[in-house]
């Protein structure tokens, strides 16, 4: 899947889960930068990403997904 398609699907998920329709993703964005990105919404975001992209993350992979750029990179790898 192309990177821009990954980014646009991910943007949709982030806007829905973190309840911010104007949210614009940036590579360096972390939980500190997004108001509603807390422990519970994090779980929902991961679940939605897995569902929307048809992937399943291993625990070791999940624990490296700190920045938005990390999520995009692992999706690119899994979907290539």
């Amino acid at each position: 899947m192309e990177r821009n398609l990954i980014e646009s699907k991910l943007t949709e998920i982030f806007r829905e889960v973190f309840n911010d329709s104007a949210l614009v993703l940036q590579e360096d964005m972390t939980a500190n930068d997004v108001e509603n990105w807390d422990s519970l919404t994090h779980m929902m975001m991961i679940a939605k990403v897995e569902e929307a992209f048809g992937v399943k993350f291993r625990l070791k992979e999940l624990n490296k997904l700190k920045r938005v750029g990390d999520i995009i990179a692992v999706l690119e790898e899994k979907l290539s």
Partner: protein
Amino acid sequence: MENSEYIFRNATIDDVEFLATAIIESKKIATSDKVGMANLFELSVEELRSYIVQMLEEEIDGCDFSISSFIIAECKGNPVATFGGWIEGVNEDDMPSSLLKSNLIGYVIPLEHVKKAQEKSHLVSDLQVSREPGAYQLEYGYTLPEHRGYGLIGKLIKLHEKRAKESGCNVSKMQVLVYDINTPAIKAYEKSGFRVVQRLEAKDPEVLKYYPHNKEFLLEKSL
């Protein structure tokens, strides 16, 4: 029981059943049997216990559900008390402990139960303090009833303090959260040098349908 009958050591994978008991029991109060996490995720206590065991067995370091966070007091070969502790944000991937814990929960607990917790998250969000990066976090201090009164929690705190000082991470303080009505625990922390620095309250009375209590103190000790 003589103090000399207790030995202290780091927890291992063989302790997971005792650690699961400690994680569940340490969050109860004397006047209620409510287990907040079980109620939040709409799980029976037995289901929750089995998921906690699975999360511990993943052996992820640096959060609430890490075997390596726990120090054990043992008597005659059996674990009788424990306390967990870790340096916030200092782990293999420098992840906040809240996200490591979330990843474990999302990995082990079925999605329909995670959704149940999500629906109630607004009720309990005021009880969650944002853990300070670099500060030593204490969680789940628990002693079996028949071993209480021997200062085991104080000794476990001292051992965590030693861990913090010897970590090489310049840890400046330790933090612990406790229900404001848990007087014995608060006294034990104060005796160990902790002071109340913040009061947290979940204001919606509905929270008491799920949690045993709705007010907490954050205590700190400078190192």
